[in-house]
């Protein structure tokens, strides 16, 4: 196999990787934030809120990510247009980002929920006993402890998300994989560029997993 064309293509590939990472970081931040709210909803004593949160999680865990991405790219702008009466360009990046945030929030929510539930009930009791409000109990006592415990799991899920970002291929967003594919097509070496993409994903995910494992061991002590 002739890999000679890869070196000159690297700057272009890096642009794709930059987009992938941008998408990843924003989606993780957004997903964890939304996921935390949903987890709090699921654990709430408000029945309506709890079942709405549960429905959200079940809904997004039931449908393929590819379908969600297509929804947000092709259909949601249409809905916005009905609401505002104007063409509402969302753009591929934003619509994919929103799709990932909404989708991953369902998965992050389950991790956060388990994290919160793993904190002994006595902690909340003690915090209420010294006069804290619900918000203070969560913000100052429960969530800091829970997040420490679940950081490895959240990171693990983020590595999965890193790989899942490649699905934006379906809507033609020029992420790392799509850039590699498209460059490979133009240059006439699709196989080489595909293997390169696979290798890059492998090395980065593998290294990240190893780091998470070490972090997990350190947190376990």
């Amino acid at each position: 196999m002739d890999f000679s064309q890869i070196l000159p293509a690297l700057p272009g590939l890096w642009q794709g990787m930059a987009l992938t990472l941008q998408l990843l970081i924003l989606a993780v931040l957004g997903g964890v934030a939304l996921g935390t709210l949903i987890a709090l909803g699921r654990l709430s004593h408000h029945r309506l809120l709890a079942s709405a949160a549960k429905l959200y999680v079940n809904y997004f865990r039931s449908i393929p990510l590819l379908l969600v991405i297509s929804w947000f790219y092709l259909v949601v702008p249409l809905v916005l247009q009905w609401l505002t009466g104007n063409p509402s360009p969302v753009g591929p990046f934003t619509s994919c980002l929103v799709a990932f945030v909404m989708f991953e929030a369902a998965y992050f929510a389950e991790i956060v929920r388990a994290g919160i539930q793993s904190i002994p009930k006595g902690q909340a009791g003690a915090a209420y006993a010294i006069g804290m409000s619900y918000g203070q109990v969560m913000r100052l006592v429960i969530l800091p402890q829970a997040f420490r415990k679940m950081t490895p799991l959240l990171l693990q899920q983020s590595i999965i998300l890193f790989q899942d970002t490649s699905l934006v291929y379906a809507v033609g967003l020029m992420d790392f994989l799509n850039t590699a594919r498209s460059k490979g097509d133009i240059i006439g070496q699709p196989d080489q560029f595909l293997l390169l993409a696979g290798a890059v994903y492998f090395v980065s995910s593998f290294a990240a997993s190893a780091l998470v494992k070490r972090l997990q061991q350190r947190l376990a002590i």
Partner: protein
Amino acid sequence: MSKSFKLLPAAVLAFSMISVSSAAELTGTLKKIKETGAIVLAHRDAAIPFSYLDNDQKPIGYSWEIANAVAERVSKELNMPSLVVRTNLVTAQTRIPLIQNGTVDLECGSTTNNVERQRQVDFSVGIFVTGTRLLTKKTSGVKDFADLKSKNVVTTAGTTAERLLKAMNADKQMDMNIISAKDHGESFQMLQSGRASAFIVDDVIEAGLMTISKNPSEWAITGKPQSVENYGCMLRKDDPAFKKVVDDAIKDLYKSGAINKLYAKWFLHPIPPKGLNMNFPMSKELKALIAKPTDKPAESL
């Protein structure tokens, strides 16, 4: 990713006299462009030489330049010298929904103007005329559509060729196995790797793809053209003001003769990425279209 660049300030103030004077009177796409300060042009990734990506992942091509001519016209008419041009990659399958849902404002690529699509979007006056034929290895023995009985054939999802092929398969009971690949590049890869005996799509696209193959001389375009495909630029339906700007821009290209230079650049000269020449002289149908621009659907030509 959308890249943007600013058009050079066009100092043709005279145009602003005849153009729409204030944003308040604008409607539809023009209003949106005025408000957002940007126009979003769609492009394809391997519709060679109409709209595709060069080595730097920048859109180029015959239709792409037409789209930019439109953008320039818009910037003059709206008196927006710093109009931002955004780009958005589309596939054959996503281009119509993306026009409809407002993600892109104009798609000049290799989109056939037909009755079916006119129910969903509007088209500019035609920019190219071609027909669906088949691309195959010279040694494959395939000469015409009849030879495709029980064969593996590939086409691109979302194209008029796909519908034509599927309908032909059902009507004539040809027992073809049809692969619908995501875009032309992938279709051609299927053909090159030997998984399909023929690639069915517009002949000009076939000629364009041949320029990126490892060995262009082993391919042949053959078969009786199955349809007349006249390409147009797609825009949102029922937006006469914008359509007029688009049509005027294209008609200007025709009237001024600039179209001949543009045609020669993409069809009669070496083109990126490999520097091969398609040698695809202008057909009499296209000449007729340029002489008498129309936005009628393919069926009525």
